[in-house]
């Protein structure tokens, strides 16, 4: 029984150290820019601006013709539901 408790304590300690270590590693990792994109239809993409908003002035736009979050060819004068104002 004592051995079982010791084993459990050791495993708990191992898990705890691993968890803290993993979190620390995550904290020092530099994140890559990869990531899956969604289809244009899922975000209501349209080729024309809407209410003064267009992709060319969106924080997600990647010139000349793509988007960080939406798949496919993206027009700077297009618009979709993910529009976020680009900051200077």
């Amino acid at each position, binding site marked *: 029984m004592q051995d079982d408790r010791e*084993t*459990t*304590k050791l*495993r*708990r300690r*191992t*898990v*705890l150290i691993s*968890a*803290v270590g993993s*979190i*620390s590693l*995550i*904290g020092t*990792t*530099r*994140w*890559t*820019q*990869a*990531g*899956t*994109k*969604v*289809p244009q*239809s*899922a*975000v*209501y993409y349209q080729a024309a601006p809407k209410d003064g908003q267009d992709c060319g002035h969106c*924080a*997600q736009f990647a010139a000349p013709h793509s988007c*960080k*979050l939406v*798949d496919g060819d993206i027009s700077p004068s297009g618009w979709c*539901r*993910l529009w*976020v104002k680009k900051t200077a």
Partner: protein
Amino acid sequence: MTPLRRSVTVVLAAAAAFLALRAGPAEALPAYARQTGLPCATCHTAFPELTPYGRRFKIGGYTARGGDWQGPPLAALYMAGFTHTNAPQDAPPAPGLHTNDNLVSQQISGFIAGQLYGNVGSFIQITGDPVAGTAGVDSSDVRYADTLKLLGQSTIWGIDVNNSPTVEDPWNTTPAWSWPQISSTIAPAFGPPSTRIENGYATTVGGVGPYLFWNDMLYAALIAYKGFSVPELQAMNVGNSTTDAVTNVAPYWRIALEPHWGQHYLMVGSFGMYGQIAPGRQYGIGTDNFLDIGFDSQYQYDGEQYSLTVKLTDIIERQRLNASFFLQNSSNITNWLNSFKANASFVWDHTYSVGLGYFNVSGSRDCFLYGSGANLACSPVNFGSFNNSLASSPNGSGLIEDLAYIPFSYGAPFPYSKWNVRLGLQFTEYLRLYGGGNNFDGSNLGRTHNAAGNNSVFAYAWIAF
């Protein structure tokens, strides 16, 4: 709480706090919003329910990145609630509480949530229950996702690892994320039993399997689960040597079709799981075998000004209780249990939410499994958590109304831009419990031993940051 558990809790909390401080206050949590550079409203109709884009972000492995945040993907939440029940409970629901009208901190969670590296993303949750004084690994999943062309159509495929069946599912019709996602942890005193897939596997199993989302329409997943060993359960603080054990490689399957026409999304699907359980980790007496088959459907109008989400879920469970029958915990070797839920949420501008729901649990009568001691014709040998029915019945039904105000779905004020609050009022009304209305267990004690005595008002605050 043992000194060891307390020290683990303190160390984890300190680590999370330290890393959160390291992240700096200039950038915002929750982690997904920081990573994508999108407001909460993009992924949630009213958090935590998902929009079509929110589902695709999840299917895509939590890796979509549009924000300029380069720090660790950490987040946290805090839930507090005041619970009033129609009648006081027989005893306080936890030490230090009253038999009614309790205000408690009911959940504190820390998350590692977002892109871990490249195409690998996570929703890892460690939860503390201040009422019980415990902390452990909560429902979590880690996945790898990528894209390919399949039959000429764009397809997202991935591998998911999780510890709770359906936590990986992107719809709010399956058990792990079903509505309402928040409820009181100290009431009701008596609630209807759940199917195994609803409340029998979470955090005590580990599973891995592939999934795909073809042509932005067809979703399929297949996951194989194994039960955690006692040391693993203890290490994660989610079980012990008497926790039910899953003895087989338990298969879980999921298929869903989600066509959409403009802003109208329809989903019809099915899911299920087969598990062989050694109750209380008692071996050599056969196993209790549970086959759960669920059917679900959702309609969602994803408008710019408002959304409407209507959801239906029905889970049919076939039970073969070899072990429980041997232990005289059930009178029948075979039983069935059915859980039906229907609910609808209307959300205005991702800010004001009104939800209405109905639930109905029905099943075969079983003296030893559900029968109360007041039924002399039944006289259960052992008394478990379901021995509450004079009629030896699991049948129960009720209504839930939830009103919520979510002020910061488009951005929060100082000091962070991406944190949010859900302030809500939830009413639960039990139409019947354990096959009866008044005195459903035959105890003649009144109060919560009448179905309506468990009716509750739950006022809550849910803060995610």
